[in-house]
């Protein structure tokens, strides 16, 4: 199939007007739609977008939500189409990506949010009022007032007992069903038994009534949970959502020529068409003679790869230039990339692990507390039943394992959030713990310490004008890295390439061609640490060019910093020793270890036999090594590789992320350590005092929120620093 093939293509957003898409993306009999709007940052954007209805007839209204980069619009389909609206948004400089109602609304999450916020508010209001009445009692209210206040507290505690504490009962019940101890269990027990005990005491006319402490403590725990939920939210970048949305459609050749179709409707054998910048919605076979695809999303390989007609191109590969025709073979949902996207969308990657990690520790403490309380209750009942109940209740309330149950997740969630701000996608919270153990850091050379692309080291100005045109003429269509480098260097010079006669590219050697009688060759020269090539005119060398892969701009800074922190720093490279030496010289940094001419398998070998190693690498080449390492860090690599090798993915270019990762890990660890220490001291001292009768449930309920409050605040404070 000739390259000049120019099909009649549908306009950019026209697919939105087709029934299948309307059914998928719109609501309310096809009048409302939601877009994820890329590039929306500030108030100005809000204004620009929300004023669309004033300019565009038929757009009834439009409303944006900055926090989630969403725009919600209603149109009059008789007057305007969704594609017109999308085009207008795009014209204003944003990237509108339609999303399905399920994707955009995350209705379930929002409903839960609202429900829990209301529960929290009611808990707070009730606890506040109950506290007010008990304060009055502590400050000396007596007689009728005291009795009235106590009964008031009782009345106000009823909704606490039933409504506010409900999630704890559910959690406790579930944990009992699963034969596990969970943090919900002591809450449920405290809520109910405290209520029964206090009511009995109220009826007997006693003073030790704990409605205030119980409601206060349930409120604080709800508050902590709510905070935690918020912090763990959305720490994956929205890029994945974008990507998946773009992959929601494809140009398919139908009876009426090319038109958009939803990706789900793609069948093996459908003929599809992609243009520059688009990703493949299916594993497909290339029809076009040759095409340049970037596999960055998949493997992290930055330099595009040439595919020839008949080759299989994986879903998720992005067309770098021109356009291409393909035949779909395997639908997106069945491809590896499709599965990753699905996983990422569920946002379930980290949350569960954080909680389970903390729960494991909490369970231990709970086990100990419950056993102690039961034994004590049994034994002390022989002395005094009332006192036995009071003291064991105090123990249960006091020994709430909040440091672990909330402090740890909070610290880790804060670390995750910070990581995200620093442009790190961290697969799970274990990474922070593992990072702390690392002693040796291995760096891959190409693509990690250096760029994958080559750069001309000489100033292009010294080349005479006519030679520039000739060089460009020679290299104009080549896909060799050196050709890229030369084209890049001459891009600013306004050079017009001269077409050459008999231009030929000889793989492994270079390019040649002639103008009139002048015969030119551009061949690689001898290597001496740099890539080197020579321009020959009629067999005589005219110019020498040297090329280097540009060193990552903060590589040196990061390496020096790592050494200062006491890490061993090692280099792994597929290149020759000379190249590695040159790099060392350019970086002005002596590596502790240098391994040259190593294959990916050898890299994995080396990393694998080094205990406590961090592997910093790039994409598919290093994924083996990263998997064997304690922590694998993918630099500018593919998400897939990063997620698979249980590691970290640096979204921002540069290596600074590594130092940030170490700092964040240390911060989280020290935060957790402090929490644990406080918790252990508090629980053992407080527990002993409770059992000895020095702490009644009231004091316990004041101490518990105080200790939790301290832990939450200190964690939060460390978290925002």
């Amino acid at each position, binding site marked *: 199939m000739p390259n000049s093939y120019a099909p009649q293509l549908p306009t950019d957003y026209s697919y939105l007007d087709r029934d299948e898409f309307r059914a998928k993306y719109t609501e309310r009999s096809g009048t409302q739609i939601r877009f994820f709007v890329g590039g929306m940052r*500030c*108030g100005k954007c*809000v*204004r620009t977008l*929300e004023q669309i209805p004033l300019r565009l007839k038929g757009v009834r209204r439009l409303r*944006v*939500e*900055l*926090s*989630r980069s969403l725009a919600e619009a209603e149109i009059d389909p008789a007057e305007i189409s969704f594609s017109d609206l999308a085009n207008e948004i795009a014209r204003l400089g944003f990237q509108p990506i339609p999303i399905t109602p399920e994707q955009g609304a995350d209705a379930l999450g*929002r409903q839960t*949010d*609202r429900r829990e*916020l*209301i529960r929290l*508010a*009611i808990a707070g*209001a009730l606890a*506040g*009022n109950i506290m007010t009445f008990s304060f009055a009692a502590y400050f000396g209210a007596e007689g009728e*007032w005291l009795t009235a206040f106590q009964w008031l507290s009782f009345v106000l505690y009823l909704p606490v007992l039933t409504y506010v504490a409900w999630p704890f009962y559910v959690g406790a019940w579930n944990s009992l069903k699963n034969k596990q101890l969970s943090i919900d269990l002591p809450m449920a027990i405290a809520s109910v038994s405290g209520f029964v005990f206090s009511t009995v005491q109220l009826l007997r006319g006693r003073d030790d009534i704990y409605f205030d402490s119980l409601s206060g403590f349930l409120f604080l725990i709800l508050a902590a949970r709510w905070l935690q939920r918020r912090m763990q939210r959305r720490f994956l970048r929205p890029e994945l959502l974008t990507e998946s949305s773009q992959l929601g459609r494809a140009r398919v050749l139908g009876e009426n020529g090319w038109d958009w179709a939803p990706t789900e409707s793609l069948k093996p054998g459908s003929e599809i068409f992609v243009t520059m910048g688009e990703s493949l919605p299916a594993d497909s076979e290339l029809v076009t003679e040759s095409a340049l695809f970037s596999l960055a999303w998949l493997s992290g390989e930055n330099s595009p790869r040439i595919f020839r007609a008949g080759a299989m191109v994986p879903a998720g590969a992005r067309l770098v230039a021109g356009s291409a025709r393909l035949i779909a073979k395997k639908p997106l949902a069945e491809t590896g990339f499709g599965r990753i996207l699905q996983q990422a969308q569920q946002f379930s990657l980290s949350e569960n692990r954080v909680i389970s990690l903390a729960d494991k520790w909490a369970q231990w403490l709970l086990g100990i507390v419950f056993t102690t309380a039961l034994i004590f209750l049994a034994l002390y009942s022989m002395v005094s039943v009332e006192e036995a109940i009071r003291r064991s209740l105090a123990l249960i309330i006091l020994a709430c394992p909040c440091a672990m149950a909330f402090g740890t997740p909070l610290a880790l969630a804060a670390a995750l959030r910070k990581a995200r701000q620093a442009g790190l996608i961290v697969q799970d919270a274990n990474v922070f713990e593992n990072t702390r153990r690392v002693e040796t850091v291995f760096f891959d050379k190409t693509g990690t310490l250096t760029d994958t692309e080559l750069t001309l080291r000489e100033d292009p100005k010294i080349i005479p004008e006519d030679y520039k045109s000739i060089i460009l003429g020679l290299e104009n269509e080549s896909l060799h890295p050196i050709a890229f480098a030369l084209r890049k260097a001459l891009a600013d010079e306004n050079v017009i390439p001269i077409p050459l006669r008999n231009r030929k590219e000889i793989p492994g050697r270079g390019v040649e061609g002639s103008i009139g009688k002048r015969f030119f060759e551009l061949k690689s020269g001898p290597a001496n640490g740099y890539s080197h090539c020579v321009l020959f005119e009629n067999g005589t060398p005219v110019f020498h060019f040297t090329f280097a892969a540009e060193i990552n701009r903060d590589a040196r800074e990061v390496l020096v910093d790592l050494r200062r922190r006491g890490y061993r720093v090692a280099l792994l490279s597929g290149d020759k020793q000379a190249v590695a030496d040159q790099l060392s010289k350019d970086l002005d940094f002596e590596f502790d270890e240098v391994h040259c001419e190593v294959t990916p398998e050898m890299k994995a070998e080396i990393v694998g036999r080094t205990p406590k190693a961090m592997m910093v690498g790039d994409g598919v080449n290093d994924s083996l090594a990263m998997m064997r390492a304690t922590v694998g860090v993918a630099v500018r690599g593919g998400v897939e590789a990063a997620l698979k090798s249980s590691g970290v993915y640096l979204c921002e270019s540069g290596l600074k992320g590594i130092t940030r990762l170490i700092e964040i890990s240390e911060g989280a660890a020290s935060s957790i350590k402090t929490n644990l220490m406080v918790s252990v001291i508090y629980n053992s001292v407080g527990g002993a005092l409770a059992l000895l009768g020095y702490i009644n449930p009231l004091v316990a309920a004041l101490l518990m929120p105080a200790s939790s409050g301290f832990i939450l605040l200190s964690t939060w404070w460390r978290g925002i620093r």
Partner: protein
Amino acid sequence: MNILVIMIPLSLVLGFLFLGAFIWSVQDGQLDDTETPPHRAIED
């Protein structure tokens, strides 16, 4: 002193009234998006 008999319930009723208002505002979605409104407020 019996004036407290009126004032405490009054404060409670006011308090619960505001709690009701808060619940309404959450249910109505008033607090779903807390990032855009301040930007919108400074536009006429």
